[in-house]
């Protein structure tokens, strides 16, 4: 009988391993950004609609804000766009676009077509500043608190679950900033 149960036992072991693997899959998938928990680097970049004005992350100091990396070439950004829309309207903190490795004309056309709910954009056509920020790809969404510390980083497009999670974290940051 034991011999007959052996396949079942082996299979059970395999299942345990796979369940455990699934649990940690999320963690392993995310590249641990060395910058989470550290102050956001000071980045000064021109705007998208207004190339003459330069803006810096330092200007935002003192308030929590959301930094969203996107590009018109990145289709996953189109997928997450409805949630970006909602973040811009509902989060109650500035939503900063980080337009990455793009071209001005295409980026503007993209915004015309899909809607622009970011409060303003920083443009990094060469992708130099993105290195300091530790951008791995687009889309990525960073939450920066009022002390200028990167609290959280989401890699990949935002879906309903991620949206809820981000909103919760933003509310927490707002509460901390006010207290």
């Amino acid at each position: 009988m034991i011999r007959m149960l052996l396949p079942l036992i082996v299979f059970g072991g395999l299942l345990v391993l796979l369940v455990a693997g699934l649990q940690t899959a999320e963690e392993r998938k995310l590249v641990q950004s060395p910058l989470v928990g550290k102050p956001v680097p000071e980045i000064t970049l021109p705007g998208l609609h207004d190339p003459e004005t330069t803006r810096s992350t330092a200007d935002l100091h003192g308030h929590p804000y959301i930094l969203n990396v996107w590009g018109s070439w990145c289709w996953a950004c189109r997928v997450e766009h409805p949630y970006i829309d909602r973040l811009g309207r509902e989060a109650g903190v500035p939503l900063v676009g980080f337009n990455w490795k793009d071209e001005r004309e295409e980026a503007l056309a993209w915004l015309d077509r899909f809607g622009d709910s970011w409060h303003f954009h920083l443009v990094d056509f060469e992708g130099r500043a993105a290195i300091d920020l530790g951008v791995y790809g687009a889309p990525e969404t960073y939450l920066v608190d009022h002390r200028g510390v990167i609290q959280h980083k989401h890699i990949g497009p935002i879906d309903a679950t991620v949206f809820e999670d981000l909103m919760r974290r933003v509310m927490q940051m707002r509460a901390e900033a006010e207290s």
Partner: protein
Amino acid sequence: MTPTRKKRLTLVGLIVLGVSAATVVAITALQDNMLFFVTPSDVQAQTLPPDRQIRLGGLVADGTVSRDPDSLAVTFGVTDGAHDVMVSFNGILPDLFREGQGVIAHGHMDESGVFRAHEVLARHDETYMPPEVMRALEKAGHPIEASMPQ
């Protein structure tokens, strides 16, 4: 014990022996072929034995790529934002290789603290792909990290 039974028992014994031997060989082979994934910070933090094969992942540091015009030799820095490691490589770099791009290098650290790569893969991560595309690219064996055209 009947002869048939005896024969069967020996057979089962032989199979068990063979399978155990194969398992031992497999585990040894696994230990030898394990490639640890490390970041430049890991390299800084611990001294790795020079002959240990590893996979080094990070971004190509800005302004560090230098080529020898007469051969295929190239050196560049790999950074994770916190630390940098110099990599030397002799061969053709993938299409997506450029400054600021994510790369994975296979190779080992030499005594002077330079990473000698025998293979460099550009991470294909400028955009996130649906799993099916990923899977297809993964078929190439150089998945997310490959220099595939999009």
